[in-house]
């Protein structure tokens, strides 16, 4: 009685199912579930499809006559209009498959784990807080895009061009204008003033990207950041694990009772665009002296079989077609000076004139030490 004897009919069905699953799984890589980027169903494509010429050029780069499709590894926040990548395919014949790998930290970890047998040909979305980690891991092939001529030098953080800057965003203190107990703060030090007691909520830099960015802002922007945070703690700063529970939990916006939160310089235009009834001015403002600049980069992943196509995609990311599409989809700013900002951004988004900045190599070298110290001071 202790051995299983199953009826054949029952088992036949079950084994058939498992076999199908395993076969399907083994062959399933090319299944495009509802693939939206197929060139055949693109409908209208912008005019000059280069079928006649043998070589295709994008920004001076030569492609094979029959280019391969490539994979763009990126984070979950990556978003574009439907037609943007279709335009690239129409211009070059290269199809782009997207692969999204969680938040930036997860994406970077996955890229490092799979170095040598990369998940994609191009990676987009590594920012200056993770940059040194990816460079130390030698994830990228150097490539100097001719379109870099349109990008101001302040964004070019890697002299070897292993990564190319694509967009930037500022992490700043946002305040709910009507709920502030006093005039809006103008400096970081103002945040420790008694009139702003129990008003600020920040994110834990150990678990949150804007949280880390703001810690870096205070390291760059105050004389003694440890004392500054001790003062903030005395002044009743609240801490959450992530941006969502800060903005929608503690901050006025989501029904909380705090009037200041660490968020993005692009948050006020989002408040206008996604207001449930149309409004002219955002309910929130930005403390421009508190902004840490995050720059997002793209790079050709080492080990790619399609370097020419990968480089063409990097070139494309700096063209106005891509750059103009970035603000309203990802709520960040384009780096190319050829780009045009959408009107709602022009009106409601502010760019810090003199953002705070920490060298990426310093961030990687001291990050654990700084966050450990922060935990001691703020969370005790």
């Amino acid at each position, binding site marked *: 009685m202790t051995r*299983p*004897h*199953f*009826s*054949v*009919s*029952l*088992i036949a069905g*079950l*084994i058939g*199912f*498992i076999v199908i*699953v395993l076969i399907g*799984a*083994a062959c*399933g890589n090319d*299944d*495009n*579930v*509802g*693939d*939206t980027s197929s060139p055949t169903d693109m409908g209208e494509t912008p005019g000059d499809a280069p079928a006649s010429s043998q070589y295709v050029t994008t920004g001076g780069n030569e492609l094979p006559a029959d280019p391969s499709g490539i*994979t763009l*590894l990126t984070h*979950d*926040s990556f*978003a574009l*209009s439907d037609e943007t990548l279709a335009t690239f395919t129409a211009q070059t014949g290269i199809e782009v*498959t*997207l*692969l*999204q*790998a*969680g938040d930036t930290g997860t994406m*970077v*970890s*996955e890229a490092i*784990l*799979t170095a040598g047998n990369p*998940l994609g040909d191009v990676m987009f979305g590594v920012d200056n807080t993770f940059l040194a*980690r990816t460079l130390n891991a030698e994830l990228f092939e150097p490539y100097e895009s001719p379109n870099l001529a349109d990008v101001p030098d302040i964004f070019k953080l890697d002299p070897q061009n292993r990564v190319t800057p694509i967009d930037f965003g500022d992490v700043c203190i946002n305040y709910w204008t009507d709920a502030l107990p006093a005039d809006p703060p103008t400096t970081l030090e103002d945040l420790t003033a008694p009139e702003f007691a129990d008003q600020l909520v920040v994110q*834990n830099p*150990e678990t949150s990207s804007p949280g880390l960015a703001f810690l870096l802002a205070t390291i760059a922007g105050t004389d003694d950041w440890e004392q500054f945070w001790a003062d903030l703690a005395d002044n009743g700063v609240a801490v*959450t694990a992530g941006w*969502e*529970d800060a903005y929608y*939990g503690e901050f006025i916006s989501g029904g*909380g009772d705090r009037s200041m939160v660490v*968020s993005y310089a692009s948050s006020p235009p*989002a*408040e206008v665009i*996604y*207001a*449930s009834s149309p409004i002219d001015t955002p309910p*929130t403002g930005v403390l421009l002296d508190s902004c840490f600049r995050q720059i997002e980069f793209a790079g050709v992943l080492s080990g790619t079989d399609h370097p020419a196509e990968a480089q063409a995609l990097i070139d494309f990311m700096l063209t106005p077609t891509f750059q103009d599409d970035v603000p*309203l*989809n*990802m*709520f960040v700013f384009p780096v190319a000076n050829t780009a045009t900002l959408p009107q709602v951004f022009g009106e409601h988004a502010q760019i810090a004139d003199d953002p705070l900045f920490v060298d990426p190599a310093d961030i990687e070298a001291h990050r654990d030490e700084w966050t450990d110290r922060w935990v001691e001071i703020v*969370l005790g």
Partner: protein
Amino acid sequence: MDGPVGRNRSRIGGLAARWVAVGVPAVFLAVFFVYPVGAILWRGLGEEGLGPMSDLFASARTRGVVWFTVWQALASTVITLVVALPAAALVSRLRGRYRHLIRGLVTVPFVLPTVVVAGAFEGVFFRFGLDQGDFRLRHTVWAILLAHVFFNYAVVVRIVGSFWSGLDHHLEEQARVLGAGPIQTFWAVTLPRLRPAIASACAIVFLFSFTSFGVILLLGGPRRATLETEIYRQAVTRGDLRSAAALALLQLFAVLALIAVATRLERRRPAPTGVVHRPPQPMRRAFRGANLAMMTVLLGSPIAILVERSLAVGDGYGFDHYRALTERVPQLPASAATALSTSLVFATAATAMALTVGTLTAFVVVHGRLSLRRIFDLGLTLPLGTSAVTIGFGILIALDEPPLDLRTSWWIIPIAHALVGTPFVVRTMVPVLRRIDPQIREAAAVLGASPGRVRRLVDLPIAGRGMLVGAGFAFAVSLGEFGATSFLPRRPETLTAPLALFRLLSTPGELLRGQAMALAVVLMAIVALSVVAIEAARGTEQDFL
């Protein structure tokens, strides 16, 4: 069939079936769990062996984290059991429609992403003044325990409830006739017989709380850390694979030890039960009322807040956010409605896989060779107690070459969901299979039924209820799964509903938040309806078995 040829055929069939019963779960576990997890641990620790482990134990922080992880999971398990057992009693006695309805409704919390639940609880705390002062709940360990009870209530109600309804109530009636009071009857007669199902349910609740991630970070406040959150911190934030692997190994050992204890409890054979001939006496109205009140407060209040937020439009109320679900916003690669249908496809595939693997495993655990029982029982439960980072990153580096280059295939998502769903099928079926009266099976065998026929005609119909309860869980688990999914690289088209919801909450703006809440409510409705449909598929008369 009774001639020599028929006998022979059935023996060959039996042999093949035995191989399948053992082979399918073994291959599934080996390929999708043991190999990937082994690969990531080897990558992290290979060169240094167990050196980092001793460093870990030397650190006071790690010891604190392990202690907190274990005790909060134990406390969550005990509290969930105490709170949900009366409801399991209620569900075991209800018949027909109401029973399916309640079992469907209690499953709702299962699919809710923690970011939404945490927001709802904070809302509840705020509304009842529990966010500060002497009775502060927010950012305390109590908030964590409360949320774990909320999420796991269904586990106890459904597993224990369905087992309970199959118990022969004559024993209780005899005890009452002999003069025992209701409480004495429960302690002395009912509880000992429920023990296998309770052990099963507790094992799952424990593992769920043990590996809980979002609840700890969001509701516990920024100071709390468990093994699960530490593994994430080391692997992702710090990029320290060595420490992460050491912690993952520690987590694995802890889970193995605890499952071993649970299975030992569960394996004590319950008194076999025949067929229940008539329903027990209806329960007292006060008991029923108290139960329903408990469910309303515990499960109902956070859900009510979500529903209210999904309907709030500007200063009034409306269905605008629900209508918006069909339109794509820039934050999502497709509309939220598309993400919902993707989730349903994945959940169906994951449930089918979990049901296949889980059913075979349960038969091996109960009737298989002794040496296999323990291994299968431990092995197929282990994924539930393993960090999502370990599984996700393991799959990424292990399944990266043909013929199993699955790391970017959409199949890997339902497979990962099935890994988590399978333990539910196993744990609901094992206690039910075990208590089938050997006399029924022997009678069938004496009357000439082959072992295969015994299984088909005796075991399966009786175990069917456990199977459906398990299937409902597997479906709900897949619909709500966030962790492992977010650690696997995905095509934009395969965005699942919980991930879509999280994306909606990542940009400020009332419309996006409203849409996220509407998506959560639709997700809840879908899971309640699906579970009711899955369980009702069996019909009510079978409940008496």
